[in-house]
């Protein structure tokens, strides 16, 4: 019996390994697993103070519900890629607030006219200083702020379609 168990061990190990790799691949698709990513220092911390033309930290906190904040720019090609995903989230009633990073207001408006406007609120960070405070590494970048104003999650790059379900559930609950 022991011998049989021993001979079945490689199968067991392969099974566990396969399961773990599947979890990683799923995570890659939904954005919960990112082997390349550098963890954000903001996770688990309150939103830093900011005041932008459009909205401020106080406006976000006043919501008393989770909010998604998306850094984007009209000059950014991956943002074009991401636009349909954000629209899908918007249609599910998820509040997305946009911060246009180093972008001229007119150009931002043109971008939203071309690719749709998923944003409940729109702010402009033309000098890019707020992005530095947040530790934004590039556009697009997405943050999930909970009802208490704590940063819960960050995603670098265009949001994958597979993230829509998870995010809308998270924000709804």
């Amino acid at each position, binding site marked *: 019996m022991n011998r049989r168990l021993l001979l079945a061990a490689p199968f067991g190990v*392969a099974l566990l390994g396969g399961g773990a790799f599947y979890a990683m691949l799923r995570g890659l698709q939904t954005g919960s697993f990112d082997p390349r990513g550098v963890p954000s220092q903001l996770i688990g911390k309150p939103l830093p103070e900011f005041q932008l033309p459009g909205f401020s930290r106080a406006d976000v906190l006043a919501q008393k519900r989770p909010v998604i904040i998306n850094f984007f720019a009209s000059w950014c090609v991956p943002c074009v890629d991401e636009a349909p995903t954000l629209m899908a989230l918007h249609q599910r009633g998820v509040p997305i607030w946009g911060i246009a990073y180093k972008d001229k207001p007119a150009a931002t408006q043109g971008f939203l006219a071309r690719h749709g406007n998923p944003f409940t609120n729109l702010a402009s960070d033309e000098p890019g200083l707020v992005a530095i405070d947040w530790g934004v590494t590039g556009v697009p970048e997405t943050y999930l702020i909970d009802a208490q104003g704590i940063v819960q999650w960050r995603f670098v790059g265009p949001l994958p379609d597979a993230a829509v379900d998870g995010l809308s559930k998270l924000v709804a609950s």
Partner: protein
Amino acid sequence: MIPELGHFALALAIAFALAQAVIPLWGAHRGDVRLMQAAPALALGQALALSVSFGCLIYASVMDDFTVLNVAENSHTLKPLLYKITGAWGSHEGSILFWCLILGLCGAAVALFSAPLPASLRARVLGVLALSAFGFELFTLIESNPFARIWPAPDNGRDMNPLLQDPGLAFHPPILYSGYVGMAIPFAFAIAALLEGRIDAAWGRWVRPWTLAAWCCLTGGIALGSWWSYYVLGWGGFWFWDPVENASLLPWLTATALLHSAIVVEKREALKIWTVLLAIGAFAFSLSGTFLVRSGILNSVHSFANDPARGVFILGLLGLLIGGSLLLFAIRAPLLGASGVFAAVSREGALVMNNILLCSITAVVLTGTMYPLFADLLLSQKISVGPPFYNATVLPLAAPVFVAMAVGPLMSWKRTALMPALLKLWWVALIAAIVGIVATFGMNALPALFMAAAAWMILGAFADIIERIRLFRIPLGSSLSRLVSLPLQAFGTTLGHAGLGVTVAGIAGMSMAVQEVVLVKPGATVHLAGYDWTLQELHDAAGPNYNARVATIAVRQDGRLITTLAPERRAFTTQTMTTTEAKIHTNLTRDLYAVLGEERDGAAVLRLHDNTMAPLIWLGALVMAAGGACSLADRRLRVAAPKRAAKSDAVLAGRT
């Protein structure tokens, strides 16, 4: 039209593979000889269809057919012809098709050379090969079709990554892939043996040449990759414990273990279950390597345009292949059971020791490669595992391998004493000690120790031959006649073991390497490692698809011109990427290595290296591969062997 032909040929290959998987396996199960005999012809058909398919891809690439998406994304009209051809396996889609092609060719090789094999074993081996080929060909067709069209076609292609436009890398994938894919053959033999429920000495004799051939290719492929990173990336290093490098090292270690344990199966009919597991393991690691590189899970310089959806398909495929074979192993391996007995101190014992150590190294490297991923998945922690970990864990395990390597071949089968073997090596130990002591004058204690180990391994490898020809104990003439009649396999072992020694010497010698980054104006001279490096001039040059800046550096020693190096910095126009082209002067014991960096105010940044003994690293790998080839050429391993063995078995049976 041609791409459609290629597409069709690919589909045809899948049909062949399915037939080749189902008919012979069913035939072997039912004992129907006619069904079993269909296998070789189907294998040849599959290989032919895949060759046509890959030929069409090369044709599309050479003809600059930018209506083919794969060509448009990876080629350019200005790309040199060589890279248009080799670019066919440079992209993800092309390389997967190429992978299938090699698997198909392996199947054809088995079909051609396996006629003396028992009919059912032959049918099963070919069936299992086809089963794995079927999965990968299906993946190519569904998830990464290299013949997909794009319309409207772009005016020109996007060109290949300039780093890959290099003759070394042009041939790195085919050789490495032959090694990876070649492991499918021992795997197929292992699965066939599990299905048959029987393993004997003949099985070991059959598996070994195929493993050896794949192992030679894998050794060559890894060495070529390492050499490429040494001279193309321009960092002057040769091994970075990069996850993808590790992914190629894992099957190599497992295959090395398999190579040795198969000897025990062949000679003593022992270690059968273990050998089967190693054969499955070597192929499983080859496959997982491909999967990890392509799924985007591993961070590496080797990343292809990765796509998690593709990853899920490959993972499913691997799950079926590896999971299925290990499940079969769990169910059927107990049947293989009882085997020849041997004492702990014997040749068999030494080979078991080799297996334990090699598998421990495999486990350590696997842990180091996977730990960051699992830490991220389970603990959400970002950890990176680098050279310090591997140096601390692999070296202590490698040291006993080095020591045992020289002793093992001198021990006799079944039962022996350790002392006589050690006594035969007294002169080797003496010379190794002297080498070690001399080395401490030039380098630190640890590299000096490895220098001594290298001497021990190289001389120890020859000690076996010296023993066998009884050199200096019988007249020289008789020794020479003994040398001529030695089986080639003996030289194979010697070269294989000595090759590793040469590589270790190179790695230890690299600890004496010196480098310097300097900012010099044309005309100025730098002193480094006893050489005078003079930057003579800087000029522009035009290449086929790049513009280059070339520095001319004269290297002199005591006023005598040693060489003139012309390192380049190339700006590729289509990919807007700059690469550095290091230039190396080698005399096989040291590399003089120069890289041209940025320029400022008329002065250029130069990185100059004097890499002592660096060439030995790759030379050693070459010697190892040559040892494998030598062993492969041995008559005893060739096709007629099982027949003769069967006869001698009959003789033995008659005697009892």
